[in-house]
């Protein structure tokens, strides 16, 4: 339920346990998690990619969840981390969007404003030692064509860039993106680049899946693709020749 104060809804109790000595412990780790989300700006706007897996620890528990969601007309959210917290965040944002619709005054919160709002929410929750355990990418494009890409993590750190990746993506995809990204990427090039990164992530991140979604935000609005499989090639030399037994740590 949306309270009308500018500070916004304070909803969701979070998990809490009380110990015998009177101390309380809130969420200290995520339970059901999504892995990396990638985001890049390109010629017409901004594009996100994520797989559709929600893991329970190391178990691939839910294989068809959406981690890229639209908010209103021009904003996309991509989430890694605790999936239930993401669902809660989306409910909150839906409330805000319905408020905009109800106002009917021709104004809708811009991607940058939603990014700032999420930063406030995340930072506020972390200051209560009860964080929402997500690493979010916020992407969007205003009607005039200005693209926005920013990230907010579970302690309220916020950061904007032309290329962003959460989780393992920060280690495995960002180096590729840094090498291949340019501001004038065509839509097809942008998609191919993200697919390459998602493929690498599937090869090397044990919490990743080869079933992915791509979403784009342009001046025309937002589109989230259906989930589809990325091709993999397991006959590559580095995969087919086990390093075990040789004088290494045994990994690829």
């Amino acid at each position, binding site marked *: 339920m949306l309270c009308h104060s*500018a500070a916004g809804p304070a909803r969701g109790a979070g998990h809490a346990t009380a110990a015998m000595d009177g101390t309380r412990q809130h969420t200290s780790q995520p339970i059901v998690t999504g892995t990396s989300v990638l985001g890049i700006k390109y010629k017409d706007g901004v594009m996100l990619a994520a797989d559709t897996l929600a893991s329970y620890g190391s178990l691939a528990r839910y294989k068809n969840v959406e981690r890229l969601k639209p908010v209103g007309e021009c904003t996309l959210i991509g989430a890694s981390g605790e999936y239930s917290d993401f669902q809660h965040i989306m409910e909150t944002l839906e409330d805000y969007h319905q408020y905009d619709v109800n106002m009917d*005054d021709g*104004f809708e919160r*811009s991607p940058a*404003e939603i990014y*700032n709002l999420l930063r*406030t929410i995340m930072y506020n929750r972390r200051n209560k030692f009860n964080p929402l355990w997500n690493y979010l990418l916020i992407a969007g494009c205003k009607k005039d064509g200005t693209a926005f890409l920013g990230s907010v993590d579970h302690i309220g750190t916020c950061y904007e860039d032309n290329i962003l990746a959460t989780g393992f993506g920060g280690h495995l995809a960002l180096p590729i993106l840094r090498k291949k990204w340019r501001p004038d990427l065509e839509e097809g090039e942008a998609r191919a680049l993200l697919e390459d990164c998602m493929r690498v992530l599937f090869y090397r991140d044990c919490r990743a899946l080869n079933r992915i979604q791509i979403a784009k935000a342009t001046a025309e609005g937002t589109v989230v693709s259906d989930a589809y499989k990325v091709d993999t090639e397991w006959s590559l030399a580095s995969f087919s020749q086990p390093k075990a037994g040789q004088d290494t740590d045994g990994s690829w």
Partner: protein
Amino acid sequence: MFRNQYDTDVTVWSPQGRLHQVEYAMEAVKQGGASLGLRSGSHVVLAALKRAPNEMSAPQKKIFKLDSNMGVAIAGLTADARSLAKYMRTECLNHKYVYGTTMQASRLVLDLADMHQRTTQSYVRRPYGVGMLVAAHDQTGPHLFQTCPSGNYFEYVAMAIGARSQSAKTYLEKHFEDFENCDLDELVKHALKALSGCVTGDKELDANGLTLAIVGKDKVFESLEGEQLQPYMDAIELEGNAAQPMDEGDGEEKAPAPDAGMA
């Protein structure tokens, strides 16, 4: 005023379906010194007559800045206006913290109108005795809103409130269709011409007797006073055709009561 048994509590309806206490609060707005606002396609101008309660005091504040893109001109009880302006400033600051942007004026005005409304429906508080003209330039362009003690609010191209505001209203009604394409200087001159009709009969509008504020596209809220206004005053004197004060006996308008905290 017409006294009757239904007019002493806000929570009592008259048999005609009227709320007399609320209407009396609206009366307080009409007793305050005149304020007006008008907007073009890019800017909004507020102007108000300054009144001093006595010879030795400074005049009371008529225009309050709320944020870099927003301000308000008032007529009625200054003390009420100050507390409402404080509320609005806090809302603007909160918005800036949460969203990193300035607030949409229509939504702030709606919250303000709701504050007014709540006082009219419960026994514990009296209605606010102040009318406000909110000028802003936000993401949907320039706006001018009026709020009333009743909790009603309106969006106008131009409006005047307070004592002897009728002549300003008449001037604005005659010219408002031209405002859309006015440049800022023309808009300020229209404001001053309209305001000159609100001065007490035997006096004339002078640069020290009024306060003016501007906000607009790529123009942060700015107040102009005294000497800053002199060039505009000189210009309208040359052009003529300013609004003329109406007859003192003009129906609803009452002589001001400057000692009652009215501004």
